[in-house]
Protein backbone atom coordinates (compact mmCIF):
# COMPACT_ATOMS: atom_id res chain seq x y z
CA UNK A 1 0.00 0.00 0.00
CA UNK A 2 1.30 3.44 -0.84
CA UNK A 3 0.33 5.83 1.88
CA UNK A 4 1.05 8.82 -0.34
CA UNK A 5 -2.03 7.85 -2.38
CA UNK A 6 -4.24 8.82 0.54
CA UNK A 7 -4.65 12.44 1.46
CA UNK A 8 -5.24 13.78 4.99
CA UNK A 9 -8.77 14.68 6.01
CA UNK A 10 -9.65 17.61 8.24
CA UNK A 11 -12.89 17.77 10.16
CA UNK A 12 -14.09 21.04 11.69
CA UNK A 13 -15.28 20.53 15.24
CA UNK A 14 -18.10 22.92 15.99
CA UNK A 15 -20.88 20.80 17.42
CA UNK A 16 -21.16 17.44 19.10
CA UNK A 17 -22.13 15.61 15.89
CA UNK A 18 -18.75 16.62 14.42
CA UNK A 19 -17.11 14.38 17.02
CA UNK A 20 -18.99 11.44 15.51
CA UNK A 21 -17.90 12.43 12.01
CA UNK A 22 -14.26 12.59 13.10
CA UNK A 23 -14.50 9.18 14.74
CA UNK A 24 -16.04 7.75 11.58
CA UNK A 25 -13.30 9.14 9.34
CA UNK A 26 -10.64 7.74 11.70
CA UNK A 27 -12.29 4.36 11.88
CA UNK A 28 -12.73 4.10 8.11
CA UNK A 29 -9.11 5.04 7.50
CA UNK A 30 -7.79 2.60 10.09
CA UNK A 31 -9.92 -0.18 8.57
CA UNK A 32 -8.57 0.69 5.14
CA UNK A 33 -4.99 0.41 6.43
CA UNK A 34 -5.67 -2.95 7.99
CA UNK A 35 -5.53 -2.04 11.68
CA UNK A 36 -7.03 -4.71 13.99
CA UNK A 37 -10.46 -4.17 15.53
CA UNK A 38 -9.13 -3.13 18.94
CA UNK A 39 -6.70 -0.65 17.42
CA UNK A 40 -9.52 0.74 15.27
CA UNK A 41 -11.57 1.31 18.40
CA UNK A 42 -8.62 2.83 20.28
CA UNK A 43 -8.01 5.24 17.43
CA UNK A 44 -11.70 6.15 17.34
CA UNK A 45 -11.73 6.64 21.11
CA UNK A 46 -8.63 8.84 21.00
CA UNK A 47 -10.18 10.98 18.26
CA UNK A 48 -13.32 11.20 20.41
CA UNK A 49 -11.41 12.45 23.43
CA UNK A 50 -9.37 14.98 21.47
CA UNK A 51 -12.45 16.26 19.66
CA UNK A 52 -14.46 16.46 22.88
CA UNK A 53 -11.74 18.54 24.50
CA UNK A 54 -11.97 20.97 21.60
CA UNK A 55 -15.77 21.03 21.77
CA UNK A 56 -15.91 21.44 25.57
CA UNK A 57 -13.02 23.80 26.27
CA UNK A 58 -12.16 25.65 23.06
CA UNK A 59 -15.58 25.71 21.41
CA UNK A 60 -14.24 25.17 17.92
CA UNK A 61 -11.18 23.65 16.25
CA UNK A 62 -10.11 20.95 13.82
CA UNK A 63 -9.18 17.30 13.79
CA UNK A 64 -6.86 16.22 10.96
CA UNK A 65 -6.34 12.55 10.24
CA UNK A 66 -3.36 11.72 8.02
CA UNK A 67 -1.80 8.46 6.90
CA UNK A 68 1.93 8.38 7.68
CA UNK A 69 4.72 5.99 6.84
CA UNK A 70 8.09 5.45 8.51
CA UNK A 71 10.57 2.76 7.53
CA UNK A 72 7.87 0.77 5.77
CA UNK A 73 5.46 0.87 8.73
CA UNK A 74 2.08 2.46 8.17
CA UNK A 75 0.49 4.66 10.78
CA UNK A 76 -2.30 7.13 11.37
CA UNK A 77 -1.56 10.58 12.66
CA UNK A 78 -4.25 12.58 14.38
CA UNK A 79 -3.76 16.30 14.92
CA UNK A 80 -6.12 18.26 17.14
CA UNK A 81 -5.90 22.02 16.79
CA UNK A 82 -7.77 24.77 18.58
CA UNK A 83 -7.47 28.44 19.44
CA UNK A 84 -8.99 28.01 22.88
CA UNK A 85 -7.78 29.11 26.31
CA UNK A 86 -4.83 26.70 26.35
CA UNK A 87 -3.76 24.39 29.17
CA UNK A 88 -2.05 26.15 32.11
CA UNK A 89 -0.14 23.10 33.35
CA UNK A 90 0.44 20.34 30.80
CA UNK A 91 2.06 17.94 33.27
CA UNK A 92 -1.00 18.26 35.45
CA UNK A 93 -3.32 17.74 32.49
CA UNK A 94 -1.50 14.50 31.72
CA UNK A 95 -1.76 13.38 35.34
CA UNK A 96 -4.33 10.62 35.87
CA UNK A 97 -5.62 11.99 39.15
CA UNK A 98 -6.16 15.44 37.69
CA UNK A 99 -7.90 14.59 34.43
CA UNK A 100 -10.35 12.05 35.84
CA UNK A 101 -11.72 14.84 38.02
CA UNK A 102 -13.30 16.12 34.81
CA UNK A 103 -11.22 19.28 34.68
CA UNK A 104 -9.46 20.74 31.66
CA UNK A 105 -7.68 18.20 29.48
CA UNK A 106 -10.09 15.34 30.22
CA UNK A 107 -9.03 12.03 28.79
CA UNK A 108 -5.52 13.08 27.76
CA UNK A 109 -3.68 10.46 29.88
CA UNK A 110 -5.89 7.77 28.32
CA UNK A 111 -5.12 9.02 24.80
CA UNK A 112 -1.41 9.14 25.60
CA UNK A 113 -1.48 5.49 26.67
CA UNK A 114 -3.59 4.22 23.77
CA UNK A 115 -1.40 5.84 21.11
CA UNK A 116 2.24 5.14 20.25
CA UNK A 117 3.38 8.73 19.96
CA UNK A 118 2.07 11.78 21.76
CA UNK A 119 2.97 15.42 21.39
CA UNK A 120 1.30 18.47 22.90
CA UNK A 121 1.87 22.20 22.55
CA UNK A 122 -0.24 24.68 24.42
CA UNK A 123 0.00 28.42 24.94
CA UNK A 124 -2.28 30.26 27.32
CA UNK A 125 -4.74 32.40 25.42
CA UNK A 126 -3.57 31.09 22.06
CA UNK A 127 -4.63 27.49 21.89
CA UNK A 128 -3.61 23.88 21.98
CA UNK A 129 -2.26 21.42 19.44
CA UNK A 130 -2.09 17.69 20.12
CA UNK A 131 -0.43 15.30 17.66
CA UNK A 132 -0.70 11.55 18.18
CA UNK A 133 0.35 8.62 16.01
CA UNK A 134 -0.71 5.00 16.07
CA UNK A 135 1.45 2.57 14.10
CA UNK A 136 -0.05 -0.58 12.61
CA UNK A 137 0.69 -3.66 14.70
Amino acid at each position, binding site marked *: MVVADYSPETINIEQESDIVTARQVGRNMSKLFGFGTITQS*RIATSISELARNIYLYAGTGTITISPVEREGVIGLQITANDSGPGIPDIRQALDDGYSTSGALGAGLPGVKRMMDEFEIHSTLGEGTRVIVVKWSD
Partner: protein
Amino acid sequence: MVTRSFREEYVKILRDYLSAQGEDQLYGAQQLGKWMLSRDISPEEITDLHAQALEQLGEVPEFVRSSFSILTEVMIEYGNEHRSVNSWRNRHQQMESEIAVAKAMQQSLLPSEVPVYPELEIGVVSIAAKQISGDYYDFIEQTEGRFGVAIADITGKGMPAAMCMSMVKYAIDSLGQMELGPDEMLHHLNRIVGRNIDPSMFVTMLFGSYDSKEHCFRYAMAGHEPGFLYRSAEGKFYDLEGRGNALGLCPNSEYAVQEIHLEINDVLILLTDGVTECKNNRYYLQREELVHHLQKEVGNSAQKMANGLYNRLLLLSQFDLLDDYTMIVLRRT
Protein backbone atom coordinates in the same frame (compact mmCIF):
# COMPACT_ATOMS: atom_id res chain seq x y z
CA MET B 1 -0.31 -8.82 24.46
CA VAL B 2 -2.47 -11.81 23.50
CA THR B 3 -0.25 -14.55 22.08
CA ARG B 4 -1.24 -17.33 19.71
CA SER B 5 -0.85 -20.08 22.33
CA PHE B 6 -2.95 -18.12 24.78
CA ARG B 7 -5.60 -17.61 22.12
CA GLU B 8 -5.66 -21.39 21.54
CA GLU B 9 -5.96 -22.02 25.28
CA TYR B 10 -8.96 -19.70 25.41
CA VAL B 11 -10.63 -21.41 22.44
CA LYS B 12 -10.09 -24.78 24.11
CA ILE B 13 -11.63 -23.73 27.41
CA LEU B 14 -14.57 -22.19 25.60
CA ARG B 15 -15.08 -25.29 23.41
CA ASP B 16 -14.90 -27.64 26.40
CA TYR B 17 -17.32 -25.55 28.33
CA LEU B 18 -19.83 -25.32 25.49
CA SER B 19 -19.90 -29.11 25.17
CA ALA B 20 -19.82 -30.07 28.87
CA GLN B 21 -20.89 -26.88 30.71
CA GLY B 22 -18.93 -28.10 33.72
CA GLU B 23 -17.70 -26.28 36.78
CA ASP B 24 -14.13 -27.41 36.06
CA GLN B 25 -14.01 -25.37 32.83
CA LEU B 26 -15.35 -22.40 34.77
CA TYR B 27 -12.63 -22.93 37.34
CA GLY B 28 -10.10 -23.06 34.49
CA ALA B 29 -11.50 -19.80 33.13
CA GLN B 30 -11.14 -18.17 36.53
CA GLN B 31 -7.49 -19.20 36.73
CA LEU B 32 -7.00 -17.93 33.19
CA GLY B 33 -8.48 -14.61 34.31
CA LYS B 34 -5.84 -14.29 37.02
CA TRP B 35 -3.12 -15.04 34.51
CA MET B 36 -4.51 -12.48 32.06
CA LEU B 37 -4.61 -9.85 34.78
CA SER B 38 -0.99 -10.58 35.69
CA ARG B 39 -0.06 -10.04 32.03
CA ASP B 40 -1.98 -6.76 31.93
CA ILE B 41 -4.30 -7.97 29.21
CA SER B 42 -6.93 -5.28 28.89
CA PRO B 43 -10.72 -5.76 28.91
CA GLU B 44 -11.00 -4.73 25.23
CA GLU B 45 -8.42 -7.35 24.25
CA ILE B 46 -10.44 -9.98 26.08
CA THR B 47 -13.60 -8.86 24.29
CA ASP B 48 -11.83 -9.25 20.97
CA LEU B 49 -10.36 -12.59 22.04
CA HIS B 50 -13.84 -13.88 22.79
CA ALA B 51 -15.24 -12.64 19.49
CA GLN B 52 -12.47 -14.36 17.56
CA ALA B 53 -12.82 -17.57 19.56
CA LEU B 54 -16.51 -17.69 18.68
CA GLU B 55 -15.64 -17.42 14.98
CA GLN B 56 -13.44 -20.50 15.32
CA LEU B 57 -16.14 -22.55 16.99
CA GLY B 58 -18.93 -22.15 14.47
CA GLU B 59 -21.13 -19.95 12.37
CA VAL B 60 -21.58 -16.67 14.27
CA PRO B 61 -24.83 -14.84 13.49
CA GLU B 62 -24.18 -11.38 12.10
CA PHE B 63 -26.02 -9.61 14.93
CA VAL B 64 -23.78 -11.32 17.49
CA ARG B 65 -20.65 -10.40 15.54
CA SER B 66 -21.75 -6.76 15.26
CA SER B 67 -22.70 -6.56 18.90
CA PHE B 68 -19.04 -6.94 19.83
CA SER B 69 -18.33 -3.47 18.45
CA ILE B 70 -20.50 -2.02 21.20
CA LEU B 71 -18.88 -4.20 23.86
CA THR B 72 -15.37 -3.28 22.67
CA GLU B 73 -16.15 0.43 22.74
CA VAL B 74 -17.45 0.22 26.29
CA MET B 75 -14.53 -1.92 27.41
CA ILE B 76 -11.98 0.59 26.11
CA GLU B 77 -13.01 2.93 28.94
CA TYR B 78 -12.48 0.12 31.44
CA GLY B 79 -9.14 -0.56 29.78
CA ASN B 80 -8.11 3.06 30.22
CA GLU B 81 -9.04 2.90 33.87
CA HIS B 82 -7.11 -0.35 34.25
CA ARG B 83 -3.98 1.25 32.76
CA SER B 84 -4.46 4.31 34.89
CA VAL B 85 -4.70 2.23 38.07
CA ASN B 86 -1.48 0.46 37.10
CA SER B 87 0.29 3.77 36.76
CA TRP B 88 -1.10 4.86 40.15
CA ARG B 89 0.18 1.65 41.66
CA ASN B 90 3.68 2.34 40.37
CA ARG B 91 3.59 5.87 41.70
CA HIS B 92 2.33 4.61 45.02
CA GLN B 93 5.23 2.19 45.30
CA GLN B 94 7.65 4.95 44.43
CA MET B 95 6.19 7.19 47.14
CA GLU B 96 6.28 4.39 49.67
CA SER B 97 9.98 3.90 49.08
CA GLU B 98 10.59 7.66 49.27
CA ILE B 99 8.76 7.72 52.60
CA ALA B 100 10.85 4.81 53.84
CA VAL B 101 14.01 6.77 53.02
CA ALA B 102 12.58 9.89 54.71
CA LYS B 103 11.72 7.83 57.76
CA ALA B 104 15.27 6.52 58.03
CA MET B 105 16.63 10.06 57.59
CA GLN B 106 14.32 11.32 60.29
CA GLN B 107 15.41 8.60 62.69
CA SER B 108 18.97 9.76 62.21
CA LEU B 109 17.95 13.25 63.42
CA LEU B 110 16.89 11.89 66.79
CA PRO B 111 19.47 10.94 69.40
CA SER B 112 20.48 7.30 69.19
CA GLU B 113 21.22 7.12 72.92
CA VAL B 114 20.50 9.08 76.08
CA PRO B 115 23.28 10.88 77.96
CA VAL B 116 24.62 9.20 81.11
CA TYR B 117 25.20 11.17 84.34
CA PRO B 118 25.69 10.02 87.92
CA GLU B 119 22.60 10.11 90.17
CA LEU B 120 20.31 10.62 87.20
CA GLU B 121 18.26 8.24 85.07
CA ILE B 122 16.87 9.23 81.69
CA GLY B 123 14.17 7.27 79.89
CA VAL B 124 12.65 8.02 76.49
CA VAL B 125 9.75 6.68 74.45
CA SER B 126 9.11 8.31 71.09
CA ILE B 127 6.67 6.70 68.69
CA ALA B 128 5.35 8.07 65.40
CA ALA B 129 1.60 7.68 64.81
CA LYS B 130 2.29 7.18 61.11
CA GLN B 131 5.59 6.57 59.33
CA ILE B 132 6.87 10.12 59.72
CA SER B 133 6.74 11.90 63.06
CA GLY B 134 6.07 15.53 63.98
CA ASP B 135 7.65 15.10 67.43
CA TYR B 136 11.23 16.06 68.06
CA TYR B 137 13.52 15.68 71.04
CA ASP B 138 17.21 16.09 71.58
CA PHE B 139 19.91 16.15 74.23
CA ILE B 140 22.64 18.77 73.87
CA GLU B 141 25.96 18.42 75.65
CA GLN B 142 26.93 21.46 77.69
CA THR B 143 29.85 22.27 79.96
CA GLU B 144 30.32 21.64 83.70
CA GLY B 145 28.03 18.65 84.06
CA ARG B 146 25.09 20.32 82.39
CA PHE B 147 23.13 19.17 79.36
CA GLY B 148 20.31 20.65 77.35
CA VAL B 149 17.09 18.87 76.60
CA ALA B 150 14.59 19.87 73.95
CA ILE B 151 11.16 18.39 73.33
CA ALA B 152 8.99 19.77 70.57
CA ASP B 153 5.80 19.14 68.67
CA ILE B 154 5.50 20.43 65.11
CA THR B 155 1.95 21.16 63.98
CA GLY B 156 0.62 18.63 61.55
CA LYS B 157 2.14 15.31 60.74
CA GLY B 158 3.95 13.66 57.90
CA MET B 159 6.32 15.26 55.41
CA PRO B 160 5.76 18.97 56.16
CA ALA B 161 6.36 18.33 59.86
CA ALA B 162 9.45 16.25 59.10
CA MET B 163 10.94 18.96 56.90
CA CYS B 164 10.30 21.55 59.58
CA MET B 165 11.83 19.25 62.18
CA SER B 166 15.13 19.04 60.32
CA MET B 167 15.31 22.84 60.34
CA VAL B 168 14.63 22.96 64.09
CA LYS B 169 17.30 20.31 64.63
CA TYR B 170 19.97 22.24 62.72
CA ALA B 171 19.02 25.49 64.46
CA ILE B 172 19.34 23.86 67.89
CA ASP B 173 22.63 22.28 66.87
CA SER B 174 24.18 25.59 65.92
CA LEU B 175 22.63 27.61 68.77
CA GLY B 176 23.64 24.84 71.17
CA GLN B 177 27.29 25.83 70.77
CA MET B 178 26.54 29.19 72.35
CA GLU B 179 25.23 27.71 75.62
CA LEU B 180 22.33 30.11 75.75
CA GLY B 181 19.87 30.18 78.60
CA PRO B 182 16.56 28.37 77.87
CA ASP B 183 14.74 31.70 77.42
CA GLU B 184 17.35 33.01 74.95
CA MET B 185 17.37 29.70 73.13
CA LEU B 186 13.60 29.86 72.53
CA HIS B 187 13.86 33.55 71.61
CA HIS B 188 16.39 32.76 68.85
CA LEU B 189 14.58 29.62 67.69
CA ASN B 190 11.35 31.61 67.43
CA ARG B 191 12.96 34.02 64.99
CA ILE B 192 14.49 31.25 62.91
CA VAL B 193 11.32 29.17 62.80
CA GLY B 194 9.14 32.22 62.04
CA ARG B 195 11.29 33.15 59.07
CA ASN B 196 11.49 29.66 57.62
CA ILE B 197 8.16 27.93 57.90
CA ASP B 198 4.78 28.28 56.30
CA PRO B 199 2.62 30.79 58.25
CA SER B 200 0.06 28.08 58.89
CA MET B 201 2.60 26.04 60.86
CA PHE B 202 4.14 26.50 64.27
CA VAL B 203 6.24 24.56 66.75
CA THR B 204 5.66 24.09 70.47
CA MET B 205 8.75 23.41 72.56
CA LEU B 206 10.12 23.01 76.00
CA PHE B 207 13.83 23.71 76.23
CA GLY B 208 15.68 23.08 79.44
CA SER B 209 19.15 22.74 80.87
CA TYR B 210 19.82 20.17 83.57
CA ASP B 211 22.68 20.65 86.00
CA SER B 212 23.64 17.16 87.07
CA LYS B 213 25.77 18.42 89.98
CA GLU B 214 23.18 20.68 91.58
CA HIS B 215 20.19 18.70 90.24
CA CYS B 216 18.69 21.92 89.09
CA PHE B 217 16.50 22.09 85.98
CA ARG B 218 16.13 25.49 84.31
CA TYR B 219 13.65 25.57 81.45
CA ALA B 220 11.40 27.74 79.29
CA MET B 221 8.27 26.86 77.39
CA ALA B 222 6.91 27.93 74.02
CA GLY B 223 3.25 26.99 73.94
CA HIS B 224 4.17 23.45 74.85
CA GLU B 225 2.10 20.84 76.68
CA PRO B 226 3.15 21.18 80.35
CA GLY B 227 4.96 18.18 81.71
CA PHE B 228 4.90 16.93 85.29
CA LEU B 229 7.13 17.13 88.34
CA TYR B 230 6.83 14.29 90.84
CA ARG B 231 7.78 15.23 94.40
CA SER B 232 8.73 12.00 96.08
CA ALA B 233 8.54 13.41 99.63
CA GLU B 234 4.88 14.37 99.08
CA GLY B 235 4.00 11.56 96.69
CA LYS B 236 2.35 14.15 94.43
CA PHE B 237 2.51 15.23 90.81
CA TYR B 238 2.65 18.91 89.86
CA ASP B 239 2.24 20.53 86.45
CA LEU B 240 5.42 22.07 85.08
CA GLU B 241 4.62 25.77 85.06
CA GLY B 242 5.57 28.20 82.35
CA ARG B 243 4.10 29.98 79.40
CA GLY B 244 5.11 31.64 76.16
CA ASN B 245 4.03 31.74 72.52
CA ALA B 246 4.63 28.76 70.30
CA LEU B 247 7.62 29.18 67.96
CA GLY B 248 6.81 30.80 64.63
CA LEU B 249 3.68 32.66 65.78
CA CYS B 250 5.00 36.19 66.41
CA PRO B 251 8.46 37.55 65.76
CA ASN B 252 9.21 39.16 69.14
CA SER B 253 7.94 36.63 71.66
CA GLU B 254 9.68 36.62 75.03
CA TYR B 255 10.14 33.57 77.21
CA ALA B 256 10.61 33.25 80.96
CA VAL B 257 12.94 30.86 82.77
CA GLN B 258 11.57 28.53 85.42
CA GLU B 259 13.80 26.74 87.88
CA ILE B 260 13.25 23.48 89.72
CA HIS B 261 15.47 21.64 92.21
CA LEU B 262 15.12 17.91 92.21
CA GLU B 263 15.45 15.97 95.45
CA ILE B 264 16.31 12.29 95.52
CA ASN B 265 13.60 10.20 93.77
CA ASP B 266 11.93 13.26 92.29
CA VAL B 267 10.93 12.76 88.68
CA LEU B 268 10.58 15.16 85.76
CA ILE B 269 8.26 14.09 82.97
CA LEU B 270 8.42 15.95 79.67
CA LEU B 271 5.94 15.06 76.97
CA THR B 272 4.15 16.01 73.77
CA ASP B 273 0.39 16.30 73.38
CA GLY B 274 0.26 12.81 71.87
CA VAL B 275 0.58 11.62 75.48
CA THR B 276 -2.07 13.87 77.00
CA GLU B 277 -4.41 13.63 74.03
CA CYS B 278 -4.50 9.90 74.14
CA LYS B 279 -8.04 8.79 73.39
CA ASN B 280 -9.89 6.27 75.45
CA ASN B 281 -12.66 5.03 73.15
CA ARG B 282 -14.75 8.16 72.70
CA TYR B 283 -13.23 10.70 75.09
CA TYR B 284 -9.78 12.17 75.58
CA LEU B 285 -7.85 11.27 78.66
CA GLN B 286 -7.93 13.98 81.33
CA ARG B 287 -4.70 15.10 83.00
CA GLU B 288 -5.97 13.75 86.34
CA GLU B 289 -6.40 10.32 84.76
CA LEU B 290 -2.93 10.54 83.28
CA VAL B 291 -1.56 11.34 86.74
CA HIS B 292 -3.45 8.34 88.06
CA HIS B 293 -1.66 6.11 85.54
CA LEU B 294 1.68 7.78 86.21
CA GLN B 295 1.25 7.18 89.92
CA LYS B 296 1.25 3.44 89.27
CA GLU B 297 4.67 3.72 87.61
CA VAL B 298 6.28 5.59 90.52
CA GLY B 299 9.24 3.70 91.95
CA ASN B 300 10.29 2.24 88.62
CA SER B 301 13.42 3.30 86.81
CA ALA B 302 13.06 6.18 84.36
CA GLN B 303 13.02 3.99 81.25
CA LYS B 304 10.69 1.46 82.85
CA MET B 305 8.35 4.27 83.84
CA ALA B 306 8.29 5.66 80.31
CA ASN B 307 7.71 2.22 78.80
CA GLY B 308 5.09 1.34 81.41
CA LEU B 309 3.03 4.47 80.81
CA TYR B 310 3.23 4.01 77.06
CA ASN B 311 1.96 0.45 77.34
CA ARG B 312 -0.89 1.51 79.61
CA LEU B 313 -1.99 4.31 77.27
CA LEU B 314 -1.66 2.09 74.23
CA LEU B 315 -3.96 -0.44 75.84
CA LEU B 316 -6.43 2.31 76.86
CA SER B 317 -6.58 3.62 73.30
CA GLN B 318 -7.01 0.07 72.02
CA PHE B 319 -3.66 0.23 70.17
CA ASP B 320 -4.85 3.12 68.05
CA LEU B 321 -2.21 5.85 68.42
CA LEU B 322 -3.77 9.01 66.96
CA ASP B 323 -0.86 11.40 67.38
CA ASP B 324 2.92 11.18 67.58
CA TYR B 325 3.89 10.27 71.12
CA THR B 326 7.03 11.36 72.96
CA MET B 327 7.85 11.19 76.65
CA ILE B 328 11.15 11.90 78.37
CA VAL B 329 11.54 10.88 82.03
CA LEU B 330 14.37 12.32 84.17
CA ARG B 331 14.69 10.74 87.61
CA ARG B 332 17.14 11.79 90.28
CA THR B 333 18.51 8.79 92.13
